[in-house]
């Protein structure tokens, strides 16, 4: 029995089986998140609005996501007449795949990363842009004026917010000196004042950098108050108007997976990854705590603020966030390089 177990362990430790097991686990994680983050969102929305939220299906409405999933799967995936059938069907797949790949490089705990890449940070952002193109393709393939308008807005919003996001990430890469996410987390070992968020001697504007990252993450994942593309009460369901059933379900799943990816990256870059501030729980638990705290704040923001207009959104990015993030980049570069040059 022990021999069998140790044989199995040895087998699974070998690539590529280890990676496949990890990817399957990540797929399960994403699916579970998509299902139960919806429950958290609906319950939170209810409580913010002084009502209970879902309570009927299952205890405290916990089986509501199951009911919703069954409903979506039972619906017919209607491809509109005249729509580009291949692109229409491919778009949801193109949206979910890059997110899964991005989650593969996140270190969830000590030694708990699917892939140990030394350019993990770069890979996440390389794949992240595919998301935008996939939604654009889906909207264009739908042959619907509303979808097209919404997708056009979404593309210009995402381009505008991609830039400060990358500037912020470049600043962090400079501050930590590496693109390897495991190394970034390792640098933040110790009590919580070792976290990158408090590393003010290298980048005095670090909290501002974090806020810019947070705002860009909201914009990149199309969450309120930056949800131009989707929940706009002007454009019906925006880019997803023609999607029914599981096609819409996959877009939905991808949106929550993107939020999880964005918050995981924020945890890794700024909040110390899986390091605990004062012991007690294993690393994985702390990582999930920090990550879900950020996810809850994203949900909180959605139900509190109204939406901005489109041009205000773009102005915020081009006129405020980009100059400020450039400033932090130059400041950090100066602080890192000048003492070295002088000595």
């Amino acid at each position, binding site marked *: 029995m022990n021999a069998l177990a140790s044989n199995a362990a040895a087998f699974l430790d070998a690539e590529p089986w280890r990676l496949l097991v990890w990817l399957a686990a990540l797929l399960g994680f994403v699916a579970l998140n998509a299902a139960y983050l919806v429950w958290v969102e609906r319950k939170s*929305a209810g409580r*913010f*609005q*002084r*009502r209970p939220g879902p309570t009927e299906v299952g205890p405290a409405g916990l089986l509501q996501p199951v009911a919703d999933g069954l409903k979506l799967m039972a619906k017919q995936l209607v491809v509109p007449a005249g729509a580009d059938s291949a692109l229409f069907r491919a778009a949801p797949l193109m949206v979910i795949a890059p997110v899964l790949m991005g989650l593969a490089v996140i270190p969830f705990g000590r030694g708990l990363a699917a892939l140990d890449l030394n350019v993990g940070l770069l890979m996440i952002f390389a794949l992240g842009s595919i998301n935008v193109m996939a939604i654009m393709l889906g909207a264009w393939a739908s042959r619907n*004026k*509303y979808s097209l*308008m919404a997708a056009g807005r979404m593309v210009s919003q995402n381009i505008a917010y991609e830039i400060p996001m990358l500037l912020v990430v470049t600043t962090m890469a400079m501050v930590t000196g590496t693109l390897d996410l495991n190394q970034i987390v390792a640098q933040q070992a110790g009590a919580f004042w070792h976290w990158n968020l408090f590393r003010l001697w290298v980048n005095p504007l670090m909290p501002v950098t974090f806020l810019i990252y947070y705002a860009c993450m909201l914009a990149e994942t199309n969450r*309120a*108050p930056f*949800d131009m593309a989707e*929940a*706009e*009460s*002007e454009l*019906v369901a925006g880019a997803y108007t023609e999607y029914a059933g599981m096609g819409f379900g996959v877009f939905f799943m991808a949106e929550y997976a993107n939020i999880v990816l964005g918050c995981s990256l924020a945890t890794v870059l700024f909040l110390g990854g899986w390091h605990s501030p004062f012991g007690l729980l294993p690393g994985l638990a702390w990582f999930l705590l920090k990550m879900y705290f950020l996810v809850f704040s994203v949900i909180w923001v959605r*139900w*509190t*603020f*109204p*939406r*901005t*207009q*489109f*041009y*205000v959104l773009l102005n915020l990015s081009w006129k405020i966030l980009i100059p400020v993030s450039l400033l932090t980049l130059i400041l950090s570069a100066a602080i890192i390089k000048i003492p070295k040059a002088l000595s």
Partner: protein
Amino acid sequence: MVGAPIAPHPAAIAPKETFVLNLGPQHPATHGVLRIKMTMDGEYVDRAEPVCGYIHRMHEKMGENRTYAQFLPNTGRIDYLSAMHYTHAFVSVVERAAGIQVPPRAEFIRVITSELNRISSHLVWWGAFLLDLGGFTPLLYAFEDRERILDLLEGITGARLTYCYYRFGGLCNDVDDTFLEGTRQFIAKMRPRLKMYRALVTDNIILRKRLIGIGPISAELCRRYGATGPVLRGSGVTYDVRKAEPYSVYPELEFDVPTFPEGDSMARYLVRMEELAQSLRIIEQALGKLPSGPVMAEKVPRVLKLPAGDFCFAVEAARGRFMVRVVSDNKEVPYRVKLRTPCLSNLSLFEEASRGLFLADALALLGSLDLVIPDIDR
């Protein structure tokens, strides 16, 4: 040749490409069944043409087939959110023509219930407007306050929305102490809520960016289209039917008419928020001055026949000036009932006011006009 004018390249004088976007009749942002045919030039509105009539029920024809008393329930269903005001106008025009004197207690109670109705109507507008702008939560807070008003009014009228409480000569029944005490408690609870709404919503930077300077409407535009109510007061004109053509016991009560000169969506928003506070003030004074006595005039004929001729009465409803004109030929059924509703005049200026706006701004303008479509269509 040097000096000869060069003809412009054909591409330089190409017409702009527009497409038609149909908003409604079923749409989250139009409050009721309104269809707007928007000709869009990219993100800009080139021409917005409202198409009405989807909920036309022909109340004016019904007015010619029913006696005056039978028409009373119709009045509550024209603008269901401020039903008390509309019933007040119809009841008052008949009282004016027939010379019926309403006892003072009934007049004060009419004012109290009308102002409570104004508050509940403005709360619905506030929640729905913010829903249009993407803030989902204030609607639920507004409805919580509105529930208290609805419970109060249900206790005396039996209805939650389409009240038919006033009768020719007074009211159908008197109020009891539960109502009076409940209204006092409501006022005490509502004032801190208004402060919270100001801090949480009105002063929110995103809302201010969304409304300040958006959708300007000048006083002259209002005059040419006959716009009234908060739309007119948000453009700097202090016109309120309660002060211009005083009726009921409003002359005995002290209240201000909030007016803001900017003419943008924020001004119209602030007018309605201020009106909430002023309505609370009116109710408080009316409660203090409420006399005892009968609530119904003596000797109101069972079968009402108005003298021949036409008679008008105007009230300040929640959305603007509502006027009823009754043409009578001395029969028990009116010859003609004309309902002049505020939302029709308010919407008619939308086509001119929305030219060249962004779609999001045009919808903010539409929301700030506070439309109830059955009011337009009748």
